Each structure stands twice: as C-alpha cells, then as structure tokens.
C-alpha cells in the first residue's frame, strides 16, 4: 500500500516536471534545428547557365590521392554490351574509352578513333580509323580487330542492349590493323552517336576470350583507370592504369564510386568531406551547396526530357498493334492540345525546381546540334483559350484525367503543381502515385490514361524520338501512329547532313506537337557538386561525370 502511494506521488512529481520542461525542451530543439537548416531562395538559382568543368588551370596539382565519388544509383553489371543502367556509364567512363565521345558543346569528337567516321556516298559503308600504339589494361594491343570484335559482340551476344543502337549492320571487317569497315543494309546516321556511348567502348579481346559472359565481373578496356574491385551495393574501385596511353595526364591513384542513393545524404557527405564529388544533386539542396565554401557545382542541360505520356492506342501493351482507346482524350487532338496549352512550363519549373531545370516542349534539347526553331517551338500558355477549346469540343468541364506518377517526393511535388496549374485550363487532374517498378509495368502494358515519366536522353535525336514516336516502336508507350512522322524520322536517320536531319526532325516535331501523344514538360539539368580541393572534373550533356583527369589541388 505504502509502495503504491509512493509510486503515485513519484509519478505526480515526474508528471509535473514533464509537463513543464519537456515541451520547452522539445520546442527549443525544434527551433534550433529549423533555424540551422539552410534555406534556398529562388533568386539564387543561376537560370540555366552551363558550367561543364572545374578546370585545373594554374592551380598546383597534388599528385596521387584517392578520390571518392558519391553515386546516386548502383550500376548494373559492368559489361558495356549488356548494361542498361545509365550509372554504369559513370564508372565505365574512367575504365573503358569509346571510339567517340562528346565535348562540352555536345559535339561528337574522336576518342579511340582518330577521326570521325567516313561514310560512303550511298551511306552503306562506314570506315573508322582507330588509334595506334594503344594497349588495353591487360597489355593486349588495341587494333581494328578488337574494335570489330566488340561491335560484333554488341550485335550477337544474347542479352545485348546494343543491337538496336547499332542499326542494320550486315558486316564488320578489320580492313587492316587500324581501319574498321562497317557495312549496312540501309543508311544509318545515328551510328556515330551510338559509338560515343557504350556500344563504342572497346573491350579487350584477351579478356573476352578468358572471361566470356563474366567479362562484367572485372572489365578490361583502354582507360585512365583499371578495375580493382566491386563490393555489391557499396562501392566500385578503380586504380590508375600505368599502361594508359595518356598516363602522364592522370593524377589520382584511385577512384572509389560509393553508392549513396539519398540526395540529402550525398550532399551531407560532400559537406563533411567524406566524398569529393556527388552526382544528381536535388534542386532542393543545390542552392545551399552552391553557397557553401569549398564546394562548387557543375550543371549542364540534359539531352533527355520529362513528359506526360497520353495513352492514345496502347491497349494491349507495347509491341502489339495500336488500337483505338475510344476515350475523348485519346481520340480528340483538340483536348490534348488544350491540355498542353494549360501548362505554364516556366512557372512550374520556377516554383517546383527553383529554376534549376528548364521548360521543355520537344524531345530534342536546345543544346543538341540537331535543335532547330521548329523543334524549340512551344505551345502558347493560354488557359482561357484551352477552356474554350474544351467547351467547343463538347466535353465535361472540368475534364477529368488520371495521371500516374512515380511516388518519389520530387515527382509528387511536380505532379501537385501541375494539377493546380491545369485546373485553370479546365482540367481536373487526379494524381495516382505508384512505385517506380510498377509504373514501368503500367506504362508497358498500356494500363494508364496519362503517365508522367522521362527519358534520360541520347546524343542523337534518333535515340530520343524513333522508338517513342514511330508506329510499333519499342518504347511507343502512347500507342501513337502517324505514317508521316514515321517517314520523316526514317528519312532523318538515313541522311548524314546535320542541318538536313535537324530540319526533318523539326518537321516531325511540328506534327507531334499537334497530335500531342507526349506533352513535353521540362528538362532536368545534371547537377554535380564537387569539393574545390579537386579540379579537372567535367560533365557534359550526356550527364556522365568525367574524372579521368581530375586531381587534388593545393588550397589557395
């Protein structure tokens, strides 16, 4: 009894103490935490000026050192032939040089080739001159036969992701030790761009013979660095390759790619000095990072896009013939045009992404050499006119649309802003968030009315358009079907003149913008943050972070 009494009095005392102090402590803590959080203002954003490199310039290089880069996603198998992960390119960039690369202006330049390809008058024979006196990391000599073997592997290996990128090749021949000849059944202009990506990474024939399908477990190529180890889910480490032909311009001892999927944590690791480079910085963090002493930010417009795919005829899944869906949204181009006119892209990008991203109206990036006035044209933002168009079409206003989106915070914030924006134009957008893998499934099966997803982008516009917009295309999720667009894109892929191709793609985009199977919304910018204790980091329009010639530099 006495124990019980004492306990109750003790509890009472404790209770009073808690009532008085706990809220005060909690409130104080909350204020402290909030006050210390960095706040980003919209005005601080640099309105899209590309910064593609942190040059070494006249800074003093500290030779050696181990650089750690925070990578936002885990690469898949490190085999350029089968890889389908964009993040694999980040790691391979330092280990596997390509026949061609892109430069800061987005132009294709030779890398392991000595010149751009020579294409015959009929467009059916492509000749590529290959660098001499270059060896792979295992000491095997790089020659035309090795290049031909790599391309052959891309065409024939089961599970290759490169087949469609290489086009209708009929033969690949090593004419002599430094010349490769590729023969086509019909002209295929996008080859050079494909060879500036994984299809152009030349693999050591000796390593291929030894490892076969297991090549990706320890890849051997020509590169500033060579593979050391991969700890699944954790890291991939590469070390300086003394056999590299340009070894004197390689300064680091090792590079470790540490996989850190959360953007906030990547930023925190950069600030704490645990990593020196971090990719895909969130637009929420980049403002405060850019203002932090000792941290710099590289940014470059992506070649890809984010868009709203509208289901026009994808009834039985991609790969099956399109069938009329029968809904007003699918059958009435006017409604889709009204929807596009209801989207204030500038305001959305400004409010949701603090202007770090750019509005987009077409699948061709303005930074691409294939961009034209036609491809950059945009639907006029006019919600009043959009509403009138809906009323004229005789449909219910507000017109209901269900949009499926990935359930990540950035996408949801954008979806909510879009929902509010199009309401003014007479649309009632319902957001249906689903997990990313499910969204891919829904998209392929055609089980959606509208769906918000993006495309990371390719150097050649063929890779950003053909499969998505051609009848029966492998990524034609909308079920779009327009023979005129098909013909224009096919013709564009068969000519080699850049201006002529740009014009043809521009014409195709004009038609696409009338039909609106995809309403293009915005283009992300690749935001890469780095410690100013290093220099020589570069990132170009393909988004890949180049570290081959990076170096630690002495503090100024």
């Amino acid at each position, binding site marked *: 009894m006495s*124990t019980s009494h*004492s*306990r109750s009095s*003790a509890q009472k*005392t*404790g209770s009073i*103490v*808690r009532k008085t*102090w*706990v809220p005060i402590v*909690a409130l104080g*803590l909350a204020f402290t*935490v909030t006050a*210390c959080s960095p706040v980003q203002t919209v005005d601080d954003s640099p309105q899209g000026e590309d910064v593609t490199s942190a040059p070494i310039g006249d800074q003093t290089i500290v030779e050696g050192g181990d650089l750690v880069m*925070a990578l936002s996603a*885990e*690469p*898949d*198998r490190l085999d350029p032939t089968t890889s*389908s*992960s*964009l993040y694999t390119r980040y790691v391979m960039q330092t280990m596997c040089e390509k026949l061609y690369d892109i430069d800061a202006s987005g132009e294709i330049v030779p890398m392991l080739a000595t010149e751009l390809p020579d294409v015959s008058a009929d467009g059916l024979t492509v000749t590529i001159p290959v660098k001499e006196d270059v060896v792979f990391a295992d000491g095997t000599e790089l020659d035309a036969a090795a290049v031909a073997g790599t391309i052959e592997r891309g065409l024939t290996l*089961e*599970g290759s*992701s490169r*087949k*469609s990128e290489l086009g209708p090749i009929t033969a690949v021949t090593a004419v002599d030790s430094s010349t490769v000849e590729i023969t086509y059944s019909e002209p295929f202009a996008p080859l050079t761009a494909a060879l500036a990506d994984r299809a152009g990474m030349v693999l050591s024939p000796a390593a291929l013979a030894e490892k076969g399908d*297991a090549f*990706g*477990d320890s890849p051997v190529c020509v590169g500033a660095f060579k593979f050391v180890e*991969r*700890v*699944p*889910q*954790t890291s991939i480490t590469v070390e300086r390759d003394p056999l590299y032909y340009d070894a004197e311009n390689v300064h680091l001892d090792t590079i470790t790619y*540490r*996989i*850190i*999927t*959360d953007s*906030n*944590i990547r930023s*925190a*690791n950069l600030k*704490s*000095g*645990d*990593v020196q480079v971090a990719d895909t910085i969130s637009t929420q963090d980049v403002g405060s990072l850019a203002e932090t002493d000792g941290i710099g930010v590289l940014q470059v417009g992506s070649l890809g896009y984010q868009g709203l795919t509208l289901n026009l005829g994808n009834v039985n899944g*991609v*790969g099956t013939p399109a069938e009329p869906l029968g809904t007003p949204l699918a059958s009435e181009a006017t409604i889709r045009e009204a929807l596009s006119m209801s989207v204030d892209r500038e305001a959305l990008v400004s409010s949701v992404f603090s202007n770090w991203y750019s509005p987009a109206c077409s699948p061709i990036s303005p930074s691409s050499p294939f961009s034209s006035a036609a491809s950059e044209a945009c639907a006029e933002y006019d919600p009043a006119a959009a509403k009138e168009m809906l009323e004229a079409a005789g449909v219910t206003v507000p017109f209901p649309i269900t949009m499926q989106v990935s359930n990540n915070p950035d996408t949801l914030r954008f979806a909510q802003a879009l929902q509010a924006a199009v309401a003014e134009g007479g649309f009632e957008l319902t957001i249906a968030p689903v*997990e*990313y*893998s*499910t969204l*891919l*499934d829904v998209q*392929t099966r055609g089980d959606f009315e509208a769906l918000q997803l993006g495309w990371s982008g390719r150097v050649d516009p063929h890779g950003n358009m053909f*499969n998505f917009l051609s009848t029966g295309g*492998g*990524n034609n999720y909308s079920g779009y079907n327009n023979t005129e667009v098909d013909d224009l894109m096919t013709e564009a892929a068969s000519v080699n003149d850049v201006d002529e191709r740009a014009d043809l793609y521009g014409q195709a985009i004009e038609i696409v913008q009338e039909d609106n199977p995809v309403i293009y919304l915005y283009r992300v910018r690749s935001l890469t943050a780095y410690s100013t204790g290093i220099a020589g980091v570069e990132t170009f329009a393909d988004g890949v972070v180049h570290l081959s010639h990076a170096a630690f530099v002495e503090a100024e």
Partner: protein
Amino acid sequence: MTRYLLTRLWQSAITLILASLVVFIGVRQLPGDPALAMAGEEASPERLAEIRTQLGLDDSLLTQYVNFIGNMLRGDFGFSTRTGTPVTDLIATTLPVTLWLSAYALVVAIVIGIVLGVVAERFRGKWPEWFANGFALIGLSVPNFWLGILAILYLAVTLGWFPASGYVPMAEDPLGAIYHLTLPALILGTGLAAVIMRQTRASMIETMKMDYVRTARAKGLGRGRVLASYGLRNSLIVVVTIVGLQLGGLISGAVVTERIFALPGFGKLTLDAVFTRDYPVIQAVVLIITVGYIIINLAVDILYSVINPKIRVGGSN
C-alpha cells in the same frame, strides 16, 4: 524426448516448405515486371523477351518453383538479376554488417539506457532526471531516418567527429569498422536506449523502496553501493527481458539506418532487391530470415522442453 524432437523437426520442415511456397508466390505477386526493372528505360519488347527467357520467367510456375527448390537444396541461390553477383556472395557480405551494427547498437542502447535510468532514479525531481526523460521522449518519438540525417548534419558535417558514410569490414580493420559504425549504432540504438532507460528507472524506483534495500541502508551501506548492488542488480531482470523482446525491432530498424548511412547491410540488400524486383535475392533473403526464425523457435521449444518436461509430454500428445 527423441519422439518430441522428431515431431518438432517434422513440423519445422513442413513450415519451411510452406514458407518457401509463400515466398515464391508472394514475390511473383509484387506489381512490376522484373524484366522491365532489369532493362530499365532501354526496354524494348525484344529485349524484355530475352530477359524473361534468361531469367526463366517464361517457364510455368510449377517448373520455376521446382527449379527454385532444387537449386536452394543444392545451396545455389542463383545470381542477382541486377548485378550478376552470386546471391550467396551478397548474403555473405551483407549479413555480418547488419549483425555487427545490431550488436553495436545493442551495446550502445544498454549502456546509455541503464546509465540514464540509474541517473534518473538517483536524481529524481532534478535536472538529470528531466534530461533523461527528455532523451527518452526524443528517442521514442523521433523516427530514425530524421535523427540520422540530423546526426550526419551536426556530428559529421559540422563537427566532423564521425564519417557520414562508408564501411570497413571488421575483419580487415576493427578500429576503422568501429569508427564507421559508431554514428549508425548510436542512431539505431537510441530508440532501444529510451525503452531501457524508462524500464530501468521504473524498476529502480520500485526496487529502491523494498524492505531489503532499507535494511541494507540501515546496516550502514553507502547509497552508491546499495544502488549498484541491490537496486540495479534486481532491476536488470526486467531490462534483460525487454532487451530480448526488442531485439527483432533492432534488426528490422537496421534497414532504415543502413540506407541513411549507405551501409552495405542485409536490410539494404532486401530493400534494394524489392525495388529492383530482383527475384533471386528477395527469395533467398526472405527464406534465410524464415529459416532463422524457425531454428530459433525450434531451439527455444527444445530448451523449454528440457527445462519443463510437462511441455515435452504436451508436445508429443
């Protein structure tokens, strides 16, 4: 006893078969196509068809299940569809990380919880008790992921006391491993520390009012000695029980902590496998956890039967 053991083993085998069936079907009921997850944005119908053939997804469910069981029995868990790494290697590298992290967090939780619990009892109504109560409130109510981010910002970024990420295997560099695991263990152990603190405090308050404590004090034993030898020692029984009950929560809480600190643990492996629909990894991981539970339950049942023969009789009936 032998009969009882055989019965329990037989029951465990049935449970395992049923569990494998549930895992197999459950994984295939997840929305989302593993071939699509593997092909990523470069999926084309032809590529998807190839991947499905490679993964054996074109086979009938029965064939897939028989292959799955056959491979499992041979100790072949297959390869990760995402990275091509053998699943056994993945498990062998990730499981120790989670076990070390959980063990470290347990030590942290016990030390912090008991010290704060004793302090709270010793200084009742004074600021140390308010501090301990405040800690318990935060530990119980603030989620791990938020606490983890704050810890990284202040302890790693601002003060630079701990690394914000990274892991060194214990076998390679024990000190380095402890250094890298300290912050994650502190965060993971906070919740359990709060529970232990509350239990220790409550139990100590009860114990210190017991007659034998008064007698000890009356015989002239110092307050500190009484607190340690009588109060704490008798309160620990409750604490040990609570720790046992909370252990499962600690290991499942490691999933979040591993993700925040980019630790290559078992929890992160499971989560990543689910997101990428990596069937072989999900199946193996879930099955291993199931086997673990079955073995622990079996061991506990057998121990009970050793301690109390009545259970043995009941079991055989």
